[in-house]
């Protein structure tokens, strides 16, 4: 993974999600029922009038906020030692944040340090977890209730001056994220990039100081998980009057407050004494210094100028391990799925048999190992960590992804090509568009190499755009034949499926159109029973592989970080659903120096 996609990154990141519409869920079959308890974990109170099974996206036993239980996991060590409050945590970035309005920003902003999300995901299970919202309830299929945690203090900067973040703030955020203030603010609706995460929301109203009532136009199963989207960081409502031109005038309520902003030099954040998570943050300061060059960032880590380094290549790992054997290495399944996406309206790719033959033919181990070395995770359709997705063990047995059946799979692939009238790959000529980073290029080169060796009549060329803007335009215009790229997983499998494969999906760059695909996704979106929902998505995955194959998954990347040896706490933030690949530095409030 290129460095830009980690929290060291600049002004862009992966994963804009647009969901088409809201749909059913929430009522759990208790149509018109009174409040249904579904949030809060150990803090859960008797809000519910009667017990109910958890709704999709709204589990009954969500954990309370706080440091998750510490446990060693493979690749995620727990650094022993007592917390030593104080000190500065320094990370590198390729550029300081350029956009300061979280609701319209492309990706990272200061709010990833100074703000918080309403709800979070458990880093390992992916379950929704309380955060600024301490309880969330489905009152009826079209009415949801959110309870804001008391005592969430804003930073002590005018005009907020340390007041409580309350239900009005939350309602304002939701209204604005949904793009409902676009006309009033004279901002194009398109600019509100996360509006679709709250799709189906009619209005959000503060009922009292701590309660927000959400009225849905139509029921949706994805609303609560939509709130966990990593760019749905919340802001105090005054910020729109302050304006977003000068970040130093902005203040949030997260663990750190911005106290220095030197564009493209550094950002300094200072501990928020009134942070709602008692005892946190541990660091007095957090700094993001700009180190644009990847090799320079390695040097900065080795020379202890930065506290953490996130890098992907095997060479990075080797260099750092050799120079800094005392550094703590973390490695675990990431959230980015690398793929080859054919334009399904282009030439040979219009034929399922050709797409399937490619999927069956590839040697995924060679591609994954080639860039990352060991540590990548197999995937077939959706990220295997979704509860509804094919797990890794199953993926490893699937045709194409099972190394022990590779010869047989390739014979089958040859038959498919022949049946499609393309024996030996004849007439399968295409150009691979690669996003501008080494990993995409290496994946494409191995893909090209493998296929042309297996099918000498295939003609495959590679197109390298000069920069990201060029690539973005080609992709957005669907002006490609097949593309080598990555996507960061969405918090919910149905949201993911819709954005990628629905005929109106925001990331359906391959122009995949299939009535059955749309129907299944729409149905899953409206399915309130988790078991039934899972069943639909399992069927979806079977059809994906056996009838559609609109895209060829390659692998999930490993998240890799090196921390200086005297820092602990990262184990509480790591995990596939921790989205550490984004710049979620408000979780740095949970990390500390050890004595």
């Amino acid at each position, binding site marked *: 993974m290129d460095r830009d996609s980690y929290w060291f990154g600049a002004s*862009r990141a*992966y*994963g*804009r*999600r*647009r969901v*088409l519409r809201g749909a059913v869920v929430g009522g759990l079959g208790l149509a018109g029922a009174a409040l249904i308890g579904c949030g809060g974990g150990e803090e859960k109170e008797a809000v519910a009038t009667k017990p109910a099974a958890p709704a999709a996206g709204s589990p009954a036993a969500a954990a309370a906020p706080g440091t998750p239980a510490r446990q060693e996991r493979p690749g995620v060590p727990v650094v022993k030692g007592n917390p030593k409050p104080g000190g500065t945590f320094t990370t590198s970035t390729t*550029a300081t944040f*350029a*956009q*300061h309005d979280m609701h319209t920003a*492309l990706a990272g902003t200061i709010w990833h340090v100074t703000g918080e999300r309403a709800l979070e995901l458990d880093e390992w299970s992916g379950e929704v977890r309380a955060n600024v919202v301490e309880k969330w309830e489905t009152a009826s299929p079209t009415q949801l209730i959110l309870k804001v945690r008391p005592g969430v203090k804003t930073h002590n900067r005018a005009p907020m001056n340390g007041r409580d973040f309350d239900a009005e703030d939350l309602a304002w955020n939701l209204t604005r994220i949904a793009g409902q203030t676009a006309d009033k603010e004279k901002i*194009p*609706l*398109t*600019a509100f*990039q996360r509006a*679709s995460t709250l799709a189906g929301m009619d209005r959000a109203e503060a009922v009292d100081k701590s309660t927000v009532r959400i009225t849905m136009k139509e029921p949706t199963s994805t609303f609560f998980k939509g709130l966990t989207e990593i760019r749905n960081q919340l802001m105090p409502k005054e910020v729109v009057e302050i304006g*977003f*031109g000068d970040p130093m005038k902005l203040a949030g309520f997260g663990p750190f407050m911005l106290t220095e902003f*030197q*564009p*493209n*030099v*550094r950002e300094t954040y200072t501990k928020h004494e009134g942070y709602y998570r008692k005892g946190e943050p541990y660091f007095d300061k957090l700094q993001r*210094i*700009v*180190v*644009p*060059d990847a*090799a*320079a960032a*390695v*040097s*900065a880590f*080795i*020379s202890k*100028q930065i506290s953490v380094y996130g890098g992907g290549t095997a060479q990075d790992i080797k*260099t750092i391990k*050799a*120079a*800094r054997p005392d550094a703590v290495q973390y490695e675990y399944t990431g959230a980015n799925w690398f793929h080859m996406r054919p334009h399904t309206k282009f030439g040979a790719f219009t034929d399922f048999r050709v797409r399937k033959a490619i999927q069956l033919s590839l040697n995924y181990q060679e591609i994954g190992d080639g860039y990352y070395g060991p540590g990548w995770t197999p995937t077939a359709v959706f990220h295997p960590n979704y509860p509804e997705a094919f797990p890794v063990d199953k993926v490893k047995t699937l045709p194409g992804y099972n190394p022990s059946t590779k010869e047989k799979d390739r014979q089958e692939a040859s038959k498919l090509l022949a049946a499609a009238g393309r024996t030996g790959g004849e007439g399968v000529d295409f150009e691979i568009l690669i996003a501008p980073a080494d990993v995409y290029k290496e994946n494409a080169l191995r893909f090209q190499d493998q296929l042309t060796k297996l099918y000498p009549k295939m003609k495959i060329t590679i197109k390298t*755009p000069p*920069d*990201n*803007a*060029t*690539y*973005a*335009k*080609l*992709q*957005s215009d*669907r002006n490609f034949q097949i593309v080598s790229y990555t996507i960061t997983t969405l918090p919910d499998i149905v949201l993911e499926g819709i954005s990628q494969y629905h005929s*109106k*999906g*925001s*990331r*359906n*760059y391959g122009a995949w159109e299939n009535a059955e695909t749309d129907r299944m996704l729409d149905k899953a979106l409206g399915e309130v029973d988790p078991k039934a929902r899972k069943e639909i998505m399992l069927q979806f995955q079977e059809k994906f592989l056996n009838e559609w194959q609109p895209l060829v998954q390659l692998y999930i990347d490993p998240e890799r970080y090196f921390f200086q040896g005297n820092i602990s706490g990262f184990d509480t933030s790591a995990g596939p659903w921790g989205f550490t690949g984004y710049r979620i530095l408000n979780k740095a409030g949970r990390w500390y120096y050890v004595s």
Partner: protein
Amino acid sequence: MLRYTVRRVIGMIPTALVLLLMVVLLIRLLPGNIVDLLLQDSGASVSAEAKERLAEHLGIADPLPVQYVSYVLGVVRGDLGKSLWDQRPVTKIILERAPVTAEVALIAIILSVVLSIPVGVISAIRQDTPIDYTLRSISILGISLPNFVVAQAIVIFPAIWWGKSVPFTYTHFKEDPIQNLIIVGPPAAVLGIRLSATIARMTRTTMLEVMQQDYIRTARAKGLSGYGVIVRHALKNALIPVVTLLGLQLAFLVGGSVIIESIFALPGLGRLLIESITQRDYPIVQGVVVVVGFLVMFTNLVVDLSYAYLDPRIRYS
């Protein structure tokens, strides 16, 4: 002299207008714009009309001639526009960044002059001796080694070998002059050493040529010391092409700073330019190119005018 200067300045106006046309046109010829970048991860479902509305909102939807005229009028007023990404005034951004590049360039030039002219002179007066061969070899090495290779080596090897590296957090001269020089020194040295290699070779060549002139023989015949002949007669005349070269190298220094500033994490104009191009931040790209372009034009004017000082035979009418 005054008339010549005024004529030259007036002659620069068409050049400036063409420069402005080029910067406005060329950046827009690049595929992709800020709208494509903003919608990079949601573009499949956004209609062309919606993209157009966003482009209008960002102020990049006007026809090219309108944008050009508007930009030229802005430049005349001293208004270079605002960044598309963070809405900060371009003039302010350039003023923040320019001192860093200027400091690096100034140190690089001083370093290169201090190193190269003695080397060039010694090489010339010791022509075809081991000293000459050694100095020429070093010069060729300096020219042959790409800046970014030397810069990467400076950044990486000390870290790997000794766990030390150049500091990456830029500190302004006013904040801490010593720390500032520690940070700015290595990149300036990288640029300066390469520049000095070029100048040393030019100095040697022109010195050899001048040393063959009659007036040098005359000076020697008059009994002037070797030092006097070299410094007062030969070097002064030999410097004319060297000064021209130095003026031209200013553009090279800004160009070279693009990579060097990235490697050493310096917030200068070079890095600003490359970042703005990749982010399609048209006003900033235009602003930087215009400022650098005007600077090069101005430098060339100064170089031309300096000939009169260096060679009294040159007079402008």
